[in-house]
């Protein structure tokens, strides 16, 4: 995969505040690449540096091999879909889309052909003469998309483009964005704080936290093999217990955590015996039963604390005898009687469901385990 954009040891400081700390990664041609993280993690600053609105304090940004770190935005062949769209309110939809080609002095006939074509791609042909204010949020979103794509940029930068839309429309637009990206084959760099959105749409995700790139990988690898406690907690839900390795055999380890000896896999973190670690188990991998589970499973006794009905599944919040919280998402086929808070149960999971992570920087709290992301 050829790199369209290279972020090379880029640091951005605003005064004393480090917004982006020594980021290095590449984005390939035709890739749908997401930068994911909580607000203030540096994802938008990174995007603005690629667009040219901010300049890196240190490091270089290369566009197709050429260092553009000091090139102004209007001389860079990348385009942005802004968070609130930033459509020109005094121009029709058609003129908004034609703005880029006209700036670059594309011949009139060619401009008209491209604008009409892009309005067709985003299905807004019959709205061409309207002003942005006369359109719905979803339609404005598509104008912003057409206005950027009409320039055939090397990369399209999207800054939380669906943030202003309601849930239903957001899901429709996620699908639309993927369709359009396949249709035009342009690299998309997508900034979001919504982990579900990133998992659904991306080829690769960079998870960012407090200015650092914590992990880059495909949605599956980030979900199944997080490298840090932050990534495990931010993407999806996770049971995270502090623990200690007592035995290590190849990829397998035995970890003492939550008051029990548990089997786990070392996928991303090479933990030596007696090392402090964090043990992660996704709630959907936790099985809940009344009878004692089979011996080859990791298992613990637990007491039910709370049940939450969530439609397709029930979330069970439990506590181990050592008062460590355990969360399980249980489907309706789990064949459980009606449980009540205080009921004793067994929780268990197979070895491949548990993953050994580095110790957490800060002590874990129960609240983090229930974090929705």
């Amino acid at each position, binding site marked *: 995969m050829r790199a369209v954009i290279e972020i090379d040891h880029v640091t951005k400081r605003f005064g004393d505040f480090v917004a982006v700390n020594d980021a290095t990664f590449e984005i390939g041609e035709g890739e749908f690449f997401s930068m994911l993280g909580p607000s203030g993690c540096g994802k938008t600053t990174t995007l603005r540096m690629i*667009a*040219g*609105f901010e300049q890196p304090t240190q490091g270089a940004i290369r566009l197709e091999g050429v260092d553009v770190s000091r090139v*102004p*935005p*209007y*001389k860079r062949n990348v*385009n*942005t879909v*802004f968070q*609130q769209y*930033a*459509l*020109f*309110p*005094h121009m029709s939809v058609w003129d908004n889309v034609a*703005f*880029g080609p006209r*700036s*670059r002095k594309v011949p009139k006939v060619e401009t008209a052909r491209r604008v009409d074509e892009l309005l067709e791609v985003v299905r807004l042909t019959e709205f061409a003469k309207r*002003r942005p*204010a006369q359109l719905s949020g979803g339609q404005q979103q598509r104008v912003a998309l057409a*206005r*950027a794509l009409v*320039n055939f940029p090397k990369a399209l930068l999207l800054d939380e483009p669906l943030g202003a839309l309601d849930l239903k429309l957001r899901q429709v637009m996620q699908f639309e964005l993927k369709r359009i990206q396949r249709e035009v084959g342009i690299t998309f760099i997508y900034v979001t704080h919504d982990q579900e959105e990133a998992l659904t749409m991306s080829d690769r995700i960079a998870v960012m936290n407090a200015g650092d790139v914590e992990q880059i990988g495909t949605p599956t690898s980030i979900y199944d093999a997080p490298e840090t406690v932050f990534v495990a907690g931010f993407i999806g839900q996770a049971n995270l217990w502090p623990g200690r390795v007592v035995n290590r055999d190849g990829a397998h380890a035995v970890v003492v955590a939550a008051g029990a000896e548990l089997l786990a896999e070392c996928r991303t973190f090479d933990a030596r015996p007696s090392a402090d670690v964090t043990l992660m188990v996704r709630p959907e991998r936790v099985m809940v039963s009344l009878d004692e589970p089979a011996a080859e499973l990791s298992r613990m006794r637990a007491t039910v604390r709370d049940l939450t009905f969530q439609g397709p599944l029930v979330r069970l919040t439990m506590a181990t005898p050592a008062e460590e919280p355990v969360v399980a998402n249980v489907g309706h086929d789990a064949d459980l009687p009606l449980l009540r808070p205080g009921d004793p149960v067994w929780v268990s999971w197979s070895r491949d469901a548990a993953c050994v992570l580095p110790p957490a920087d800060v002590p874990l709290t129960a609240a983090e385990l229930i974090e929705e992301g």
Partner: protein
Amino acid sequence: MARNEQTGIRAARWYVPYLLLLPGIAWLGAFFIVPMASMFQTSLDGGLGNYSTVIADNSEVIRRTFVFAATATLTCIAIGYPLAYFIATRGGRYKNVLLALVVLPFFVTYLVRTLAWKVLLFDGGPVVGILQDVGILGPDEGLLNTDIGVIGALTYNFLPFMVLPIYVSLEKIDRRLLEAGSDLYASPFRAFRKVTLPLSLPGVFAGTLLTFIPIAGDFVNADLLGSDQQTMIGNIIERNFGQEFFRPELSALSFMLMAVILVAVLVYARLLGTEEIA
């Protein structure tokens, strides 16, 4: 309307909003509409001929009035727009201080400000001296009793009414629109021409109304700084006011002034494109 039996909430009566208009309507009716009607009636004393007479008698003054007003207004835009632009975009935390400085001279009364110009512009004064030294004015030329002197003072006196509305419209422009322009390959100049300028036109329009209309009716500047050669319509009306004999003519002159301004404003609004004024 009846009280709702269950809730006890009474529906608003339809005429309540109109009650709020009442004081304004009464005031305007008593002190604007009635005097205007009476003035219009006076202007017709002796027939429509009053209009052709005052226009014929004062054609030079009428032409000069609108040339002065237009020139001063354009100068206000030429000076006021860059000033407002600077304050809005580069003012930073000094924005309010800079705006206060624009308005500060207006804490001094209009008459004193205009008289101060007389002190500045007199022959042998500092301004004339410097302009003579650099050769803009000849050795025998001055600024008092010239068109430039009067237009300069009119510009000065009405400048804040141009600066403030333009500032407000520039300040309102979403910075991200300029980023979007830059992102879409527009150079800073093109971004200004295609985004900033059209979006600030409502401010220019409001500023023009606030300067052109009072300047066209002004008499103080021409009176204090000009001679017979700078007389404006306002001076004619002011000089002859109270002399019974001229009443129909003066009324006709006033109405004509109003009509021309109205037409000028409508033409201007059309030219600027009312559609742009969102």
